[in-house]
């Protein structure tokens, strides 16, 4: 069975499950719109006292907010639900069932669970991003859009690998949910350009919890702030992290004994 078809099947199952709770659509829509309104109102307060923030103009920060919501949607749509399920199934021993299936187990745990209403965030984030770009006007060329797409992809791979490494820790430690909470609160810092932060915090947000690669870096690409070093660095980081997380995952699997067996 090909992987895209597998993903489509998992998606269909999630949709069927969720359609029984259609009101959740409105709950999520309400929460997403409220979150966006809060972010925009916050920007309005700040930009009522200044015209640029650390060299970023209002519409450029708005583009960053769009990317922040979009990527938050991607994480909430497929990465987080799968990883949370993985942690739970290691604890309860139900990972056994996944391991007996003929497909690659890492792939299965990564796509087994999707949270369909998070598609709202993905679309909303995209809409905010497009709005910000239209307001920025002619300054965004094809090259920037190309670089942005590559950086968004690299950033998503980095964040996925990071989550997989954290979730894989559950093979050794039972309670990893709390570590995931650290990521959630660190991600909030990604709503602002990391260049604002003092060196130690910028370092932490780039290399310890790699939020910067998925928010600030793509925004830099779009607003023409990109240099070759960051571009190459992000791609190398994505490749290295995906290899490390893969190796770590296999190491974890070897350590897994199954609770029920």
């Amino acid at each position: 069975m090909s992987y895209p078809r597998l993903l489509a099947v998992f998606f269909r199952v999630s949709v069927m499950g969720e359609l029984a709770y259609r009101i959740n659509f409105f709950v999520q829509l309400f929460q997403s719109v409220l979150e966006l309104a809060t972010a925009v109102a916050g920007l309005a307060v700040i930009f009522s006292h200044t015209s640029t923030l650390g060299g970023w103009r209002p519409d450029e920060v708005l583009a960053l907010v769009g990317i922040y919501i979009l990527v938050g949607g991607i994480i909430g749509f497929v990465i987080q639900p799968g990883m949370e399920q993985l942690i739970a199934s290691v604890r309860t021993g139900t990972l056994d069932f996944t391991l007996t299936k003929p497909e690659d187990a890492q792939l299965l745990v990564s796509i087994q669970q999707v949270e369909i209403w998070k598609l709202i965030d993905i679309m909303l984030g995209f809409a905010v991003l497009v709005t910000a770009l239209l307001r920025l006007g002619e300054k965004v060329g094809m090259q920037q859009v190309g670089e942005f797409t590559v950086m968004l992809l690299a950033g998503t791979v980095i964040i996925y690998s990071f989550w997989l490494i954290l979730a894989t820790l559950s093979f050794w430690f039972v309670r990893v949910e709390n570590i995931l909470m650290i990521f959630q609160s660190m991600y909030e810092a990604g709503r602002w350009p990391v260049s604002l932060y003092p060196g130690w915090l910028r370092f932490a947000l780039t290399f310890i919890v790699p939020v910067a690669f998925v928010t600030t870096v793509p925004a830099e690409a779009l607003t023409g702030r990109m240099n070759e070093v960051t571009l190459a660095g992000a791609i190398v980081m994505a490749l290295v992290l995906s290899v490390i997380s893969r190796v770590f995952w296999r190491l974890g699997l070897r350590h897994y004994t199954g609770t029920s067996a």
Partner: protein
Amino acid sequence: MNALKELYVQQFKTTFIMMLQYRASLVIWMMGHVLEPLVYLIVWSVVSNGAGGSVGDYTAQGFAAYFIVLMLVNHLTYTWIMYEYEYRIREGGLSFALLKPVHPIHSDIADNVSAKLVTLPFMLLIAAGLAAIFKPAATPALWAVAAFVPALLLAFILRFLLEWTLALSAFWTTRTSAINQIYFVLVLFLSGQIAPIALFPYPIRVAAAVLPFRWMIGFPVELLLGRLTLGDALTGLMAQAVWLGVSLVLIRIVWRAGTHVYSAVGA
């Protein structure tokens, strides 16, 4: 009265030991309490440095003092009761609490205070670290520091009562997250968490003065930093007292109505 005192002593003993067991989780939950004010501290410092040194009456050092004290006040007055109540009512756990001869709010107060006692040393350490990095500056008068103590205490009680009342909305709906989120947004803007209230446009300043949120968080912070006149401070303490009275009435009405509709789903 004596019985209640004894009850509290016992409650504190048990919940304090319980909270000590959750040390690691508590410290991780603190992260959010540190990071949010830290981000706004940095953003506003950048703004004030870009605007020639100050925004309104706040320099970068002024913002540092404001957000570090805000971090502490927010942490000390914070409650998580709304998350707990939804679960308690959905799973029927409240039934057991109702069987006890004392009001369930007392064990919640003991829980909250114990958790704060466990986390406060970490919080102070973080505040000291941030102070070393960002060099905060403030010029408080002695009377303001003295008035800060009752203001903080009133702020804590007020916030606790209001959020406890809000948590009771779980009696009527199991979808409390939407209600909570509206509440959090109001608190974020009107309590001074995003920026000192003085930096907002006039209509929002008026709303902040009338509504209870500023009196739960922002007011003690401004008081301690010496940004209020004696008149402002007295008005603030009065506003706190008035809202305290209102929330006491509110909590009684909502509690009585709520326990009437409660049907213990899980039991």
